């Protein structure tokens, strides 16, 4: 574990940093932002414009402070935007 490279911070199974971190059983409701990001992802996926795998890779590429600091759907949004720009479906200027 100690030799695990930083670029794989998403590969969390067994990570000893969390051995004393409580898993809080609460499940707060998703916001409209969350659901809108989720819906956008599914629409894009069903149109064949993004794959889950591409999106995952972009999310894994986020630096640790973003990977662990942003909310789940903020990461999804950033991942999606990165895929669409990579594929040339939108440009970085479109989203700046």
């Amino acid at each position: 574990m100690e030799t695990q490279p930083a670029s794989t911070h998403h590969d969390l199974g067994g990570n000893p940093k969390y051995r004393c971190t409580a898993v809080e059983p609460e499940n707060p409701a998703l916001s409209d932002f969350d659901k809108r990001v989720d819906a956008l992802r599914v629409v894009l996926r069903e149109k064949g414009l993004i794959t889950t795998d591409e999106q995952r890779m972009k999310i894994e590429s986020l630096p640790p402070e973003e990977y662990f600091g942003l909310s789940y759907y903020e990461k999804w949004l950033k991942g999606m935007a990165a895929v669409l720009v990579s594929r040339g479906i939108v440009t970085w200027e479109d989203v700046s």
Partner: protein
Amino acid sequence: MALREPAPEHVALLEKLIGALTARGILTEAEIAAKKSATEKASPQTGARMVARAWTDPAFRARLLADGTAAAEEFGVSLAGNPPLGVLEDTANLHHLVVCTLCSCYPRVVLGFPPHWYKSAAYRARAVRDPRGVLAEWGTHIPAGTQIRVVDSTADYRWMVLPMRPEGTEGWSEDQLTALLGAEELVGVALPKLALAKVA
């Protein structure tokens, strides 16, 4: 607990992205709204009903274990375009716990949105290494002689647990049995338990 609000720049990013996609004729706001509405309908009720049926109908139970995707179709839930569903059978000697250590893969079509705790770094890190400690967070205790099998959703399948039917439910209707099951029971962090008895 309330979830942290998204940062303003991400709210802006979402709208710019949708704006660009609509301007280029790639999708419409109506499609997004329709998808949002359809997705909100998915819930653990579906998985719960499937398990309740399996508890009362041995032939369906066999079909569910053999092919979760086809069994879901019997409940009017299509997994078309979605990953296949696998169902994990608990026995007296074997208890399953589902996790996705690499991200947060979850059988959404039959269980709805993954719970916040399922997506947390703590769950993803600890479930594979200290499943008994994680279950203790829910007050769930599995005896030492019973194997805990932690199922890491690393690829194309999505997994749901078929828990053991609790004692004392003989003669119960499917609706009553369904009420015993939520996401916690179908992921394996909790065991279905009879509620504190209502006053007769």
